[in-house]
């Protein structure tokens, strides 16, 4: 972030970062900014960010960033409270926008997972399903990714500081491979890559290492999952493995959920 003269304190936007069920990895997009973190702290008023220190969860803010999914009765109540106190609410990362990897439980076949892990299941206050923030409150902007990265976050913050609507790239990872002149791993080596249906913004990291994209940024706009599943079959993946390609980090994103369900029905 280029530091220009700091705005006067009164004009600084008040910003909160809240954590729900997650790995903490998306808020690291702030904490890993290096010295830019101090510039950020100069340009906005970070009023609540538990992991970094400031605590004031119920104060009025201009922007609330939400990491994590709703996974407990307390979460359901807390997100309502945050919404009431926030002018803009921005969901960041796979957990907040699709329920995250822990939402794999939503499609699990029965079985009491709590009782299988804990000796006192009655003490575990967890909901049956892990759900995205937008299922509970109005979300003003969603940023996909597991995790979201620093440039994505700074682009959002800078847009808001300039008073413009943040933009969003719903294009496919394939477009980023082309821009980086990377050889297609699927065409050249038959690797079962999720890039053709996955949202861009990571910078095609996996193909840059010669491996498959595994869909951590969620579904792209106009993703043709049927065609990709057919291609995976030609590449020799068994039906179960193809279902699991869609059932990973963003299993409850509607497009991936529908693709996995369709394949599963077909397999039965």
């Amino acid at each position, binding site marked *: 972030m280029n530091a220009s003269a700091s705005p006067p304190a009164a004009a600084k936007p008040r910003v909160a970062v809240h954590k729900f069920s997650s*790995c903490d*990895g998306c808020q690291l997009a702030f904490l890993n900014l*290096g010295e830019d973190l101090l510039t950020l*702290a100069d340009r906005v008023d970070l009023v609540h960010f538990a992991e970094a*220190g400031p*605590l004031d969860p119920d104060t009025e803010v201009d922007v609330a960033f939400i990491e994590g999914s709703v996974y407990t009765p307390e979460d359901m109540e807390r997100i309502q409270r945050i919404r009431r106190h926030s002018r803009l609410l921005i969901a960041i990362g796979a957990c907040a926008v699709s329920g995250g990897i822990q939402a794999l*439980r939503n499609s699990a076949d029965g079985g009491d997972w709590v009782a299988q892990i804990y000796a006192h299941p009655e003490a575990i206050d967890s909901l049956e399903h892990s759900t995205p923030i937008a299922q509970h409150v109005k979300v003003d902007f969603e940023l996909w990714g597991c*995790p979201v*990265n620093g440039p994505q976050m700074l682009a959002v913050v800078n847009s808001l500081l300039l008073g413009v609507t943040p933009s969003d790239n719903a294009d496919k990872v394939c477009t980023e491979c082309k821009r980086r002149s990377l050889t297609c791993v699927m065409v050249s080596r038959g690797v079962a890559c999720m890039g053709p249906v996955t949202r861009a913004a990571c910078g095609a990291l996996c193909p840059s290492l010669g491996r498959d994209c595994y869909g951590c940024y969620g579904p792209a706009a106009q993703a043709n999952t049927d065609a990709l599943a057919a291609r995976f079959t030609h590449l020799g993946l068994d039906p179960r493995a193809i279902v*699991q390609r869609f059932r990973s980090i963003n299993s409850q994103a509607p497009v991936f959920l529908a693709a996995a369900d369709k394949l599963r029905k077909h397999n039965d």
Partner: protein
Amino acid sequence: MTESLRSVSIHVPVLARVEGEGALDLRIDNGEIAELRLRIFEPPRFFEKFLEGHLYSEIPDMVARICGICPVAYQATAAQALEKLFGVELDPWARDMRRVFYCGEWIQSHSLHIHLLAAPDFFGCSNAIELARIAPEEVRRGLRIQALGNELMDLFGARSVHPVGVRIGGFHAAPALSRIKEMRDKLRAALPEAEALVRWAARIPVPQDDQGFVSVAMRHPDGYAIEQGRIGVSDGARIEAEAFDDHFAEHHEPFSTALFCTYHKRPYLVGPLARLNLNHAQLPEAIKALLAETGLELPSRNLFHSLAARAVEILLALHEALRLLENYRPPDSPWVPVTPRAGVAIGCTEAPRGLLWHRYEMDDDGRVVSARIVPPTSQNQGRIEEDLRLSLLNFGLDQPDDALRLHCEKVIRNYDPCISCATHFLRMRVART
């Protein structure tokens, strides 16, 4: 006691600067601790259950998501376990680079903890941004070191949070020599910064808090154990990862979502201070000399030395990364082929916060039948309670509630509880009767 009938309770809704959510209940009756319970209630995410049925090749990408701050630990431990089961001999290049990759995570995680989470307490600041006003150079230096740790992880994983480079059998790709040369220059330039950090960390005045406890850390004959070794205990025991269950037991307390782990029914310490206590003789001579200069004596029985221990391990990790990258040559292939096999895969490594143990039962097709993961925070949980009890007595129970709360928070932060794998806020309630 004149105030024996007074009942006081304090609610602190969120404990700042820990990565997670927890609560502490403290009841003081007639000047004695009647009840002290650390409750952890991060909603469980059931990783062990949803790994079931997934292919071995997916495991590194999935387990990374347990913790955004130490994903490499989870990836490296899973890979080590599965490679052992599948009878894979890593190329020497891949073996060395796994250690370098892991060093990046130690540097990043430790520097984040020292500067953003722990140090503000000792300067009367409530966060790093305040600390940066009174110690701008030190905080900036810390953020630069953290950024360098991230860069080192990037080099092998393309990003530092949930990196994508590890595969069972090695890495997906090898960095080009030109990038390694640049990294060596940066590591060399960071050495004096890390030395200054060690001096600064060792000079921060901390409470004198002498406690007896058991330290548990991995040990390796060839060097300071990070990504491989056997489990060592300060009572002299040496334990193979496979024999973990013969010595350590997990149990569930109804007030917590983390499982408590004990060593022969006793609490124990894992993490930087436990590692230094057991392995300080293996530090490079230059670091030993620096330690002698600072006066930090090892083994230490004061958990408040944890912050300095992290600084020492940052310097160690920089030395190790430089040493292993010195004669870098890209390999013929960054990975060796793998053939899955049914059986039980067990692995353990030293995550930034301490011993991390994984066990996977695999079928013939290389799919997970069952999984068990014992993270460092559940191992430290019993020790944190024991420490709070001893430390509060030492501090003085007649101190005002706010001072007691701050002291408890400092004690808990010494362990850097990584709360995504175990917990998330501290609500503290003090009741005095």
